[in-house]
């Protein structure tokens, strides 16, 4: 099988040490989180880092805990742990659902949530789920820690705004408002879902007692160069009363927000259709998760 090329391998014990290694390695260096993207990229030749910096010895990078009603997830937390964490399942179903259909179980047991964000695949399963949950990434850089919305990190296919020596240390999902519900839906090549997404949609809603949509987020995967918010779709929903017709209109608008390419996996026409279909399904899921009903 494909063999890896030689590289320098380090296991720093602090963020400072790791950042420094990443900054100083010549010609380049990559962070090793779960390895499920990096090792594949190194085998296919998409990446040939001269230095690999394994973060596993750095403390406080794993674990899921309450943070003032919000949920803090260490960046190195395995995706299969995120999938079943009671806090995540209860508070952020979109993320739990996205985690449950990422790759396959033995890969999820290695993949990390931080690694997935850093890889920035346009087909990312977790990206849209994090976006609709207003997730914030805590990043350690040469100037110390900073917070950024996950949504703002993605700059292009496989690219983020992170500097070479930046390390994502945690993802924090803020406390939910009353009436919040979320869901994630994906379609892969196999109906069973454990594939690269042909299209994916996450939705979150905050629904008032009178059925009005106080706030909403819709994020799409594989329907543009990066996981992105379908703002056109959101504007159809915001401040309106929840009805089935409204959800369908929002789904239709999502198809308009999508800018999918046609490639060997799917045509752009099919992806556009899936944008509508999957957004509607994600919205239904979000409504159900919020415990609300939908007027016809």
């Amino acid at each position, binding site marked *: *099988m*494909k*063999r*890896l*090329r*030689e*590289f*320098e*391998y380090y*296991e720093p014990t602090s963020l400072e040490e790791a950042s420094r290694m990443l900054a100083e390695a010549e010609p380049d260096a990559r962070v*090793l989180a*779960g*390895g*499920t993207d990096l*090792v*594949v990229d190194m*085998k*296919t030749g998409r990446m040939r880092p001269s230095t*690999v910096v*394994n973060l*596993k010895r750095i403390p406080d990078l794993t674990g899921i805990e309450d943070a003032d009603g919000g949920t803090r997830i260490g960046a190195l937390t395995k995706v*299969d742990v995120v999938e079943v964490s009671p806090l995540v399942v209860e508070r952020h179903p979109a993320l739990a659902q996205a985690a449950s259909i990422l*790759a*396959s*179980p*033995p*890969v999820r*047991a*290695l993949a990390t949530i931080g690694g997935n964000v850093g890889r920035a695949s346009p087909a990312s399963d977790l990206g849209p789920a994090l976006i609709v949950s207003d997730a914030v990434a805590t990043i350690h850089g040469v100037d110390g820690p900073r917070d950024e919305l996950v949504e703002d990190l993605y700059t292009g296919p496989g690219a983020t705004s992170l500097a070479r020596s930046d390390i994502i240390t945690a993802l924090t999902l803020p406390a939910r408002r009353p009436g919040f519900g979320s869901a994630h839906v994906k379609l892969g090549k196999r109906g*069973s879902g*454990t594939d690269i997404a042909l299209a994916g949609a996450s939705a979150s809603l905050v629904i008032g007692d009178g059925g009005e949509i106080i706030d909403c987020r819709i994020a799409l995967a594989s329907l543009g160069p990066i996981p992105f918010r379908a703002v056109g779709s959101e504007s159809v929903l915001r401040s309106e009363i929840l009805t089935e017709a409204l959800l369908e209109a929002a789904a239709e608008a999502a198809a308009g927000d999508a800018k999918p390419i046609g490639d060997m996996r799917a045509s752009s026409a099919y992806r556009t259709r899936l944008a509508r279909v999957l957004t509607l399904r994600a919205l239904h899921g979000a409504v159900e998760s919020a415990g609300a009903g939908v007027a016809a």
Partner: protein
Amino acid sequence: MMIDLDVTINGVHRHITTDPRLTLLEVLREQVLLTGTKEGCGVGECGTCVVLADGKPVTSCLILAGDADGVTIETVEGLATDGVLTEMQQAFVKTGAFQCGFCTPAMVLTATAIFRENDNPDIEDVKKALGGILCRCGAYPKILEAVIEVKGEGT
């Protein structure tokens, strides 16, 4: 640049000096000479490289050697003791849950891990847990029969 690993493989503690550019799978097959774990694709898509790492099924072709330091690993060779097959292995034999056998180590190991967590798992959950391992011979129906056999439900 060589690295040192402290690992436990099938209950035996080992100190291995190895090349960091090897994957755990390559170390197991080529250095430790446990060839029961297979390499079918090298990129985590086929599941034939699955081993148990600290009890969890993982695709060992994606684990860099260095990342295996300190881990407790079980491969298919660690299941039977003194030639006595485990209950799961016997069930696979009885129902004919293999054909060419190439995916069988991964299937048996994963099924074993499932039952360690829960001796009466839901069949749909079993299918999901096995969903990352390809069986091109199509032994899936009898693999499920073997699992049902161990569950004790029968037909």
